[in-house]
């Protein structure tokens, strides 16, 4: 019994310590984002309770981000890009997966292997040649330039395919007997059954877009099309002294994915874990 209690105590303190490391920068950023600029580093050394809790609380940093630094536009861009990508990515990916599961045609296996290959190619590796292509299309510094190259996503095709494979074939066959067109079978019969995989895939695309940095950095030049991650990195170089605003911007960039992911965490992990486990 004694040994049992001691090992529990050890487990809890290890967990508490690790949690502290994970949360320290985030909670410090949260607290600091509510401080007035001149108090950010005032209580830094020596460490007291004032280092971790603000003496005066203000919304100034958040207000200034939206009024002075154009974060309204940046947020709109990021949401717009993510939203279009999720919708288009789901449509394109699920349709391709449908064809791979419910149709027979020559070269199917070879094409599917190609799709598998593409999801092992991260954006970073193709970003520079892709820039030349997108540039020749005239899409640099447009929404199309940020959005279109990411729509077709091999991982999303794969996720939907895994799900479709488990559906009973008879379901589709009987609908076809009744004279339903393939488009109807897909849109009205198969897709409504796909909620879990649709949630996983949406989360995956949303997080990918929300976090993407290198591609939007390369594909946009002007302020008009900045997305959140690029704006953050610019902030570091341009306004390095507005610490409270930097903390506020960081908190804003974290809070939305946290709000989306924490309740849906299970779907996110399952979605990705599936792609790793089966193949």
């Amino acid at each position, binding site marked *: 019994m004694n040994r049992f209690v001691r090992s529990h105590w050890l*487990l809890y303190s290890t967990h508490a310590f690790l949690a502290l490391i994970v949360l320290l920068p985030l909670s410090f950023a949260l607290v600091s984002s509510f401080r007035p600029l001149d108090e950010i580093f005032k209580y830094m050394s020596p460490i007291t309770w004032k280092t971790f809790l603000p003496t005066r609380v203000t919304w100034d940093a958040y207000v200034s981000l939206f009024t002075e630094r154009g974060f309204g536009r940046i947020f709109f861009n990021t949401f717009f890009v993510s939203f279009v990508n999720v919708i288009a990515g789901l449509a394109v990916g699920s349709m391709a997966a449908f064809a791979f599961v*419910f149709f027979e045609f020559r070269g199917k296996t070879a094409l599917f292997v190609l799709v598998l290959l593409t999801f092992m190619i991260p954006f970073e590796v193709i970003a520079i040649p892709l820039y030349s292509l997108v540039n020749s299309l005239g899409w640099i510094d447009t929404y199309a330039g940020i959005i279109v190259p990411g729509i*077709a996503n091999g991982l999303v095709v794969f996720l939907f395919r895994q799900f479709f494979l488990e559906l009973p074939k008879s379901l589709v066959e009987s609908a076809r007997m009744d004279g339903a067109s393939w488009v109807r079978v897909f849109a009205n019969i198969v897709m409504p059954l796909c909620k879990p995989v649709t949630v996983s895939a949406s989360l995956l695309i949303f997080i990918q877009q929300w976090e993407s940095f290198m591609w939007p950095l390369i594909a946009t030049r002007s302020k008009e099309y900045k997305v959140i991650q690029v704006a953050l990195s610019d902030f*570091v170089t341009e306004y390095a002294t507005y610490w409270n605003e930097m903390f506020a911007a960081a908190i804003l960039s974290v809070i939305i994915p946290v709000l989306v992911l924490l309740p849906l*965490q299970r779907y996110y992990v399952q979605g990705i874990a599936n792609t790793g486990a089966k193949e």
Partner: protein
Amino acid sequence: MRTEKNIGVIVLFLLPALAGLFLFKLYPILSGFAQSLYTVRFLSGEKVFAGLQNYVSLFTDPVFWGSLNVTLWFNVIITPLQIVLAFALALLLNAKIKRIAWFRSIHFVPVAVSVPTACMLWNIMLSPEQGLVNSILIGLGLSPQPFLSGSTQALGSIIAIASWKGVGYWALFLLAGLQEVPVSLYEASSLDGAGRWKQFVHVTYPMMKRTLTFVVVSVTIANLLLFAPMYILTKGGPEHSTNVLMLESYNNAFQYSDIGRSSAIVMIILLITLVIVALQFRWLKTSH
């Protein structure tokens, strides 16, 4: 019924995805390879076929070798480190104690923190004069450290930041794998008198191989292509100590407008990635 008579329907369903994947994923790799064989004339600005000249000039350039060296060291340290830490964390998170769901959620939070945000936060935390970490060090009676601005510590600091962001994420997949190991296997092996370590080697590890392969390969690819921390925090410095190949390639393309050279570097990174991933697959398949 499901035959090639449906060709129109098949094309309708497949074309958008396949066109996108070919144009924006596969074609850039081929065109990157083609571009790596060309060079731009300095004065006229015209493109000339140069064969392997870009590669030859890279291999005679000390900056490239330095960058390759930094990339390899970075990965030799960070990949095993993250995998071991993630496995340890997954085992910890698999413990059957009360409130464990809270701790799992906490380690999930960095998933929502993007690499650029993580860099920005840690940049302030690690700042030499005003950073919280140095204040804590001083509070403990230790001497403050330069972290990102010291050429011997910058790479290590980036490894720490990337691991802060990554380990919890990878641990979640390993945790999902751990939870699929049937409890009966542990019961059977402990009846056979196997200790904790023997159970790990003979039950946990073999059952986890698929998940582990996925995590090992993903961690490798993610780290080989890691670029944002160096771009945001150090620009490759101090003294080229964090100048990884990905950053060198970016700089060649967008600072020096040398797309040919930049593409040659990308091709080399791609080749290194393929070799390492192939070796990992073989190793994970044959062991045990």
